[in-house]
């Protein structure tokens, strides 16, 4: 009896919903942008969505750098009730696509001409077997080196353009009693430094072979041995108290002049700006030595939903995410640059302009590469296996030859 009346009510409800001429576009968005600036940025999207007549259900899951959100997502998908859009990036999008739960938003993408607006390599992350299944929000650059301008001037040091120059500069700072490299001993931070060294010493082509294609010959090559040698040298430039330190505390060391350099993605800029420092005069930003551009692109993957209100909401959301206004406001708040290349950058600072110019240049030269340390190049199991070796080497006295052998074995074992 109860069952029957429930059925009747739901049919009645769905009838009224389909009878309505304009269904209200609905979205439920799962994300972990909960800290101050990020929450504000999401708020922009929320307001735009509401002003177009949509109904936004927020599902923020904080904690664990997205681990907690992924657990929530898994539960939702397994129970057959996926959110409309989920903050996902890189190969994780394809992984979820293979589970058969992503939807196709090509209609919006083609209408808005996303193919012409996005660099090709970034667009490829948003496509699942040729159809669009995700919308990009921003481009973070990972291979940045930050420096305290006053400390460098005091010791007469220029921004290094090769790793050899970096080592000389660091030795000079060390002799003067300044910590050369501010670093936090967490696995992902070790991996961030590692990938910039791979790019710098090996070049873009080697980076592609080793950390994207996982070519065994590249992983065990002499170049990789040199990379680990450089990591061992860099270990000497770090202060003794580094294990477990959070990245923003390492940035604070550069801000306060306790340390000279930090290698970190452009989210570090937010810390400098929040401390009232000006790019170019108080702190310096430059790409790490070597050619190329490592990107970390945040995006929203679109999950399969039923019902015209939800489908409509999904399309509208995708359109707004790629809209000029959101791309500009969001990235001004977050310190990254817009993913679409036609946004006016007048309000952005000099570091963002450098980033944007170099992205355009490297996209043409084929050296626009996905960051492995931030989950853009490889799936979780493979990138995790590499990180295990990198961090084990960095935190012990393992020889570079042993590390290279371990790297090849670990990658094979993770398949």
């Amino acid at each position: 009896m109860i069952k029957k009346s429930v059925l009747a009510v739901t049919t009645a409800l769905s009838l009224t919903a389909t009878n309505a001429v304009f269904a209200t576009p609905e979205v439920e968005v799962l994300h972990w942008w909960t800290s101050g600036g990020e929450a504000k940025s999401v708020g922009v999207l929320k307001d735009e969505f509401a002003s177009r007549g949509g109904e936004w259900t927020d599902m923020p899951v904080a904690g664990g750098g997205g681990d907690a959100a992924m657990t929530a997502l898994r539960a939702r998908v397994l129970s057959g009730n996926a959110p409309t859009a989920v903050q996902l990036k890189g190969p994780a999008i394809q992984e979820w696509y293979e589970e058969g739960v992503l939807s196709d938003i090509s209609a919006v993408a083609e209408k808005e001409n996303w193919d012409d607006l996005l660099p090709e390599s970034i667009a490829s992350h948003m496509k699942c077997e040729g159809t669009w299944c995700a919308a990009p929000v921003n481009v973070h650059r990972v291979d940045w080196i930050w420096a305290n301008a006053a400390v460098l001037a005091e010791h007469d040091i220029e921004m290094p353009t090769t790793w050899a120059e970096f080592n000389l500069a660091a030795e000079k700072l060390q002799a003067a009693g300044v910590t050369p490299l501010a670093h936090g001993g967490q696995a992902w931070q070790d991996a961030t430094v590692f990938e910039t060294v791979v790019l710098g010493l090996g070049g873009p082509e080697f980076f592609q072979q080793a950390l994207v294609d996982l070519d065994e010959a590249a992983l065990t090559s002499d170049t990789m041995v040199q990379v680990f040698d450089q990591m061992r040298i860099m270990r000497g430039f770090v202060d003794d108290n580094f294990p477990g330190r959070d990245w923003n505390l390492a940035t604070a060391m550069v801000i306060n002049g306790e340390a000279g350099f930090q290698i970190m993605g452009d989210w570090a800029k937010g810390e400098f700006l929040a401390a009232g420092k000006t790019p170019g005069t108080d702190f310096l930003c430059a790409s790490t030595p070597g050619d190329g551009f490592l990107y970390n692109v945040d995006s929203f993957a679109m999950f399969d939903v039923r019902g015209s209100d939800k489908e409509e909401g999904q399309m509208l959301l995708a359109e707004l995410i790629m809209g000029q206004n959101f791309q500009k406001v969001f990235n001004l708040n977050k310190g990254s640059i817009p993913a679409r290349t036609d946004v006016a950058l007048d309000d952005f600072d000099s570091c963002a302009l450098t980033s944007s110019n170099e992205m355009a240049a490297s996209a043409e030269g084929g050296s626009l590469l996905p960051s492995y340390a931030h989950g853009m190049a490889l799936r979780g199991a493979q990138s995790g296996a590499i990180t295990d070796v990198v961090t084990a080497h960095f935190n012990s006295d393992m020889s570079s030859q042993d590390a290279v052998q371990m790297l090849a074995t670990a990658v094979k074992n993770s398949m």
Partner: protein
Amino acid sequence: MTVWLERHLPKMVLAPSFIAILIFVYGFIAWTAWVSLTRSRLLPRYDIEGLIQYERLFAAPRWDTAMNNLFIFGTLFILISMALGLLLAILLDQKIRTEGAIRTIYLYPMALSMIVTGTAWKWMLNPGLGVEAMVRRWGFEDFTFDWLVNPDMAIYTVVIAGVWQSSGFVMALFLAGLRSVDEEIIKAAQVDGIPTFRIYTAIIIPSMAPIFLSAFIVLSHLAIKSFDLVIALTGGGPGNATDLPATYMYAMAFSRGDIGQAASSAMVMMAVVFAIVVPYLYSELRAKND
């Protein structure tokens, strides 16, 4: 009716919890065992592929580290906690005046969660903030105590924090055991002029064997499932130097999307627990049947 009810009421009352345990404990153990035989990645899959996940697990150096750490941490944690707990219990048993207050003080760490213990010890052991910095400021410039940041020694800091947390609890267990020893025997021994030390080693401690066993079982399962302490204290670092099986499993299941690997490591952890608990249960049950 009442007779029927009387006879069946206990079963009816127990049935819900019995079913819940059957499903949520044993059912999910079986599910995990199944998944550990598949190639599950992001979501569970159910096609059995054999022992591939176990082969991967035993080939992973990080798992080796985790098992070695479990061995070091488990052994030291159990031995030191028991030794310290027994010593404290014996000292408290000397009919001292403020026993109640002192007992409470020693028991209090047990009231804290492991996360709090781990965070507090992280600050105390941090070379730049804690003990090392303090002693250096007293004027001993060469003093070093950098275990927390030294990959070879970091696992011992986990032991220190774990022992601090648990030894008070072990003390309470032993204190109850000491009190349960028959006063008459002790008095008889005292009349015979046997020294106190001998009374403890020859009479009291041997008669407390069951308490030792319970303390051992409680501590060993605490050691094997240890997770929050390591996460708060070292985050598994430096590098992976303080990984334990539980942190390995968490990383595989929730950070890396490698559910099959996580399931196989969970099964191995369960086997370790069984290796300890089954002999205990066996001896307990046999004793009852005799």
